[in-house]
């Protein structure tokens, strides 16, 4: 039984950064903006978290710094695409490239230092409960934030007035504008939120997952998060399912290998990506479902006077 709990905790760790980054990007895309810079913001978050944790000795300050840096970095994207109306795809890619390079430069002095791990929380009695204690009451803080975040975003988008405004901006910015909704302002805030989430996801990587800083340590997780948003057809609950499915396949395939099941290892390691593609294809086949959920103005620039 302990083994299973341990496996599930590994799955949580593998899924958490994806879940946080994807939830942030979901809000951004729901507002009609496609920010392909998730990888770049995530890696900036990772380096910020690690360096601040090293300098202050406090991983929680590191995580706060990551949120701040991710948000700040996303403002560059927001300014270029919203205020200067630059192409979102190109700007997002540029943000990723810039983030990977810049983080490498900032983090140069921190390479090769063992980091400070954000310890798992420990609540007397509860954490010591048999079986579920460690799973439910004994993980790191960022894990709990990720779960709260997904439900919070779901509630915000579909149960609040502000969420309705955000979705209306994403579905038709001109109509929203005509109704007097401040399109640009809402998009700025959405991008800011997405950046903060990506930063926190990066903090999870460099403070919890592997407490160290190495250049490019996100290793494509930002792109997976982007795919998850489409995978989830822009629904927060499905992002949760998608992230945990991906995490479970990622961890599960190593177990299948370790047990010694005679399935080629190359096939197993590609399984998480294959699963993503299969689901994307299935979603794309159902046109109605896609039409209902896709933010209609996704990726389109908005200029009020035109």
């Amino acid at each position, binding site marked *: 039984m302990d083994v299973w709990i341990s496996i599930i905790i590994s799955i949580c760790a593998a899924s958490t950064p994806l879940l946080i980054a994807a939830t942030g990007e979901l809000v951004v895309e729901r507002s009609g903006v496609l920010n392909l810079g998730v*990888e770049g913001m995530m890696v900036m978050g990772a380096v910020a978290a690690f360096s601040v944790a090293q300098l202050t000795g406090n991983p929680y300050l590191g995580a706060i710094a990551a949120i701040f840096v991710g948000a700040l970095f996303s403002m560059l994207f927001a300014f270029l695409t919203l205020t200067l109306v630059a192409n979102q795809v190109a700007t997002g*890619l540029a943000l990723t490239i810039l983030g*990977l390079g810049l983080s490498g430069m900032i983090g140069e002095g921190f390479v090769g230092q*063992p980091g400070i791990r954000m310890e798992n929380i420990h609540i007397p009695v509860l954490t010591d409960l048999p079986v579920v204690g460690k799973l439910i009451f004994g993980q790191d803080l960022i894990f709990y934030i990720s779960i709260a975040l997904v439900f919070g975003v779901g509630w915000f988008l579909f149960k609040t007035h502000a969420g309705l405004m955000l979705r209306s901006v994403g579905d038709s910015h001109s109509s929203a504008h005509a109704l007097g909704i401040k399109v640009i302002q809402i998009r700025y805030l959405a991008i800011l939120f997405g950046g903060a989430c990506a930063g926190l996801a990066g903090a999870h990587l460099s403070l919890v997952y*592997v407490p160290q800083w*190495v250049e490019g340590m996100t290793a494509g997780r930002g792109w997976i998060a982007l795919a998850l948003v489409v995978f989830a057809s822009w629904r927060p609950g499905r992002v949760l399912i998608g992230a945990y499915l991906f995490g479970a396949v990622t961890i599960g395939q190593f177990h299948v290998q*370790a047990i010694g099941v005679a399935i080629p290892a*190359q096939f197993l*390691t590609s399984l998480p990506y294959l699963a993503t593609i299969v689901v994307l294809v299935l979603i794309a086949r159902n046109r109605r479902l896609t039409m209902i959920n896709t933010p209609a103005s996704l990726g389109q620039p908005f200029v009020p006077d035109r």
Partner: protein
Amino acid sequence: MKKTLFALAASCAVLTSNMAFGADGDKTKACFVYIGPTGDFGWTYQHDQGRLAVEAALGDKVETAFLESVPESAEAQRPIEAFARNGCNIIFTTSFNYMDPTNKAAKKHPKVKFEHATGYKRESPNVSTYSSKFYQGRYVQGQIAAKMSKTGVAGYIASFPIPEVVRGINSFILGAQSINPDFSLKVVWVSTWFDPPKEADAAKALIDQGVDIITQHTDSTAAMQVAAERGIKAFGQASDMIKFGPETQLTAIIDDWAPYYIERVKAVVDGNWEQQDVWHGMDHGSVAMAPFTNMPDDVSALATKTTTAITDGSLEPFTGPITKQDGTEWLKAGEKADIGTLLGMNFYVKGVDDKLPQ
């Protein structure tokens, strides 16, 4: 649309790599192509230490340049050729799958010298290959693992099923079986050289499956950190990783490329570079063991003894009798493996609990 995005994303790795061009007329320019970042504190880090040693040893006569995180695909062709076109006199390509791109570039640029690490193709006279007998260190690790493990099972995080990696796995299990004939080894393939979170995942899976010693053939220190967190022992890879597991690391195989790089760059400076294929081991100091730590004295004494025996040549890990995984005999008692089989090794020996991906 999606396709273009991914193509663009793939080229990011190349674009973000450090590029330093601009050759000075009389200086010899030595250029290095790396698979990972120089700060991986494993494989690429050690190659970069070799590059720095070249600068220190040859001073004004040379200048160096490097490209890091170059993917091992057709993508590698462009950066290697860019180096060749931009005044590099000697180019070191330091990962197995740069083999074909290196040979292709060498044909197009006959005046430039190419040195390919861990490969075996030398299709034109300006290509040399070089490697080190890391498997010698794996044998020592196997012995230590068999002595230290309580479960009798070790875990091996492997990258790609190339001869270099398979040889390491076989040597490890042979070392372990020389102590405990029933010792077994679980292998997990991660299909990457460098992805710290993925390497950590693999380590966690192996530990959950009951191994109590971790060894790896990937380049980051992530597995060492997981082992430390879970309170088991592990071996460092390519570089001394003791900082990441002060109470965890038993020893590490340290790659020392400096002597070779200095020798080869100097040969270009002196104008007497010739094609060759070298495979040095502990005897040349190109494979060294980090201090034996976190183990009882008798185990470290044994490890020291084995290291000495391999260094002076009295012990060769691949000496018969050795049975292959499928039960057929590979080497008769006392027979030593020939270099060709070792270099192209594509089978497991008995005791490896895994099916070799082909």
